[in-house]
């Protein structure tokens, strides 16, 4: 099980790895300063020159960049190489604002592919595996990213894309897919459809691994997926600004390995911008170390996580981030209290009588915020007794209140009525903003 794609790099002693990061950080800072008016201006405003960056800890002197900068410089104002270097564009969907464009040199694509080759190898995939890519192909980075990574390690790729769920299941059986990459909510839906077709993922397919990401998901969802289908579910992380999906957990499922030769990560207090203590939750901030058409300097991704710098038992020395706990921008403020959809999910999935799908509706009644959580009643839990249903809904409300410290109304709905998504699930409908 202890397989490495690039053992020399993946198990590099920490001091060597830091030296490598330091060299690369110096290079990238000089590079962006030489090639980009945007960064020159930012550095000037922050009163920092490339020569000031000598040690790794000097990264704290550099100014932050944000999604807003990307939007303000739309489409390619933050690129650091001219267009003839760029071999590909990806464009984010822009569901939370203007779309953002990222560009790649051939080297950038190779770095991305190599990052995923290491990751997929670390979960035991390789030659002989059939990897069904159920992420969207096209402008979204998920499909093509996984596709290249899977080919690189010699696996067979089944480039399904999203949707067409019955076909996904048929081909999974006919071509013997051993792994699938898609959003966790879509995989739950695939399992639901398979059951309706009379097919058991556990007994009637060769699927053994799921690579799930592109939306925050909880440890409880992992357990539910693994118990229901017998596969191992791994978390994958990466954002379009960083390239796309890049990193996964190793087979030990204990944090996502961030390749330190490619990315320098910091976890900071979102309010003060100061580094949080070891084991504390904060906002992920990344600096790219080997990405050139569109490098990032201290880019605030907005994902909340915990950094673990201790080398992993798998032998890899690179830092790990724990499961993404939510995003700074999908945090809901309900009656002054911070609520993350991932918290709601972890409560719901501990209650077996309700389904995996849920939706959070937020509205304002008079001066008061009202949060309603819609959950589906499973057939096993439905007994004909109204009192059982009432106590189920009370129990869900009580558990939510305990964890969130804010009360929520619970609405029991019929199975299959919460919209299933083939990509990122829409878990929150906030009517207050309309």
């Amino acid at each position, binding site marked *: 099980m202890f397989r490495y794609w690039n053992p020399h790099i993946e198990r590099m002693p920490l001091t060597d790895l830091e030296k490598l990061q330091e060299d690369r950080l110096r290079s990238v800072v000089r590079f962006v300063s030489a090639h980009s008016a945007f960064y020159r201006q930012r550095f000037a405003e922050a009163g920092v020159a490339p020569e000031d960056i000598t040690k790794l800890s000097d990264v704290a002197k550099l100014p932050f960049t944000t999604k807003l900068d990307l939007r303000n410089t739309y489409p390619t104002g933050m690129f650091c190489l001219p267009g003839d270097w760029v071999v590909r564009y990806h464009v984010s969907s822009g569901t939370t604002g203007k779309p953002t464009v990222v560009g790649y040199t051939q080297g950038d694509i190779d770095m991305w592919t190599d990052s995923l080759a290491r990751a997929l190898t670390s979960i035991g995939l390789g030659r002989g595996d059939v990897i069904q890519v159920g992420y969207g192909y096209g402008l979204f980075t998920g499909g093509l990213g996984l596709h290249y990574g899977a080919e690189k390690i010699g696996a067979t790729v089944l480039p399904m894309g999203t949707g067409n769920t019955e076909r996904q299941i048929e081909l999974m059986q006919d071509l013997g897919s051993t792994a699938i990459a898609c959003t966790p909510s879509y995989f739950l839906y695939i399992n639901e459809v398979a059951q309706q077709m009379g097919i058991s993922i556990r007994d009637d397919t060769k699927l053994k691994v799921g690579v799930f990401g592109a939306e925050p998901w909880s440890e409880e969802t992992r357990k539910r997926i693994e118990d229901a289908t017998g596969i191992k579910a791994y978390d994958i992380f990466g954002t379009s600004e960083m390239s796309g999906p890049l990193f996964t957990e190793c087979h030990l499922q204990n944090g996502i390995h961030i390749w330190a030769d490619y990315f320098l990560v910091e976890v900071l207090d979102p309010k003060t911008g100061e580094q949080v203590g070891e084991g504390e939750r904060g906002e992920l901030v990344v600096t790219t170390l080997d990405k050139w058409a569109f490098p990032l300097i201290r880019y605030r991704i907005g994902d909340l996580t915990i950094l673990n710098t201790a080398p992993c038992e798998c032998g890899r020395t690179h830092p790990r981030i724990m499961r993404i706990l939510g995003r700074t921008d999908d945090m809901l403020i309900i009656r002054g209290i911070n609520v993350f959809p991932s918290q709601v999910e972890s409560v719901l999935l501990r209650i077996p009588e309700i389904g995996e799908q849920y939706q959070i509706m937020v509205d304002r009644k008079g001066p008061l915020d009202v949060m309603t959580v819609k959950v589906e009643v499973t057939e096993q839990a439905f007994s004909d*007794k109204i009192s059982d249903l009432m106590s189920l809904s009370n129990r869900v409300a009580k558990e939510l209140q305990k964890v969130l410290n804010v009360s929520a109304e619970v609405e029991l709905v019929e199975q299959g009525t919460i919209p299933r998504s083939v990509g990122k699930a829409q878990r929150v409908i906030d009517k207050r903003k309309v």
Partner: protein
Amino acid sequence: MVAIKQISIFVENKPGRMARVAKTLSDAGVNIRALTIAEAGDFGVIRMVVDDTEKGYQVLREKGLTVSETDVLAVELKDVPGGLYEIAKTLGDHAINMDYAYAFVTAKAERAMLILRVDDIKRATEVLQATGVRIATREEIQRL
């Protein structure tokens, strides 16, 4: 055992939900003998006795509805004042609790029937039959 199967369906309290249930049964040629809706705010439970329970249960499930089957008694009521009292008193005297009940009249058989959900179906059957109350069987309900 004279208990018959009732179909219960979980439905949201929204326009069109009942229509969906009724159409599913109608398309399958399943005839509803008796029906009641219990509502509890956002949701409700439709309870019904149909002529072909297996088929009704199956087609509703295939439509993705949340369905369960429950044992109930179909008790024949005398069509005279005090008919219901007699049954309720017998059960009460024997400390058997009625969870819910709903009645229907059949034109063809010229009888009134009470669908009864009790906490102890076996004892309820015994004490009712001992007082001469007729309890309809599955076949009778089907033939009505």
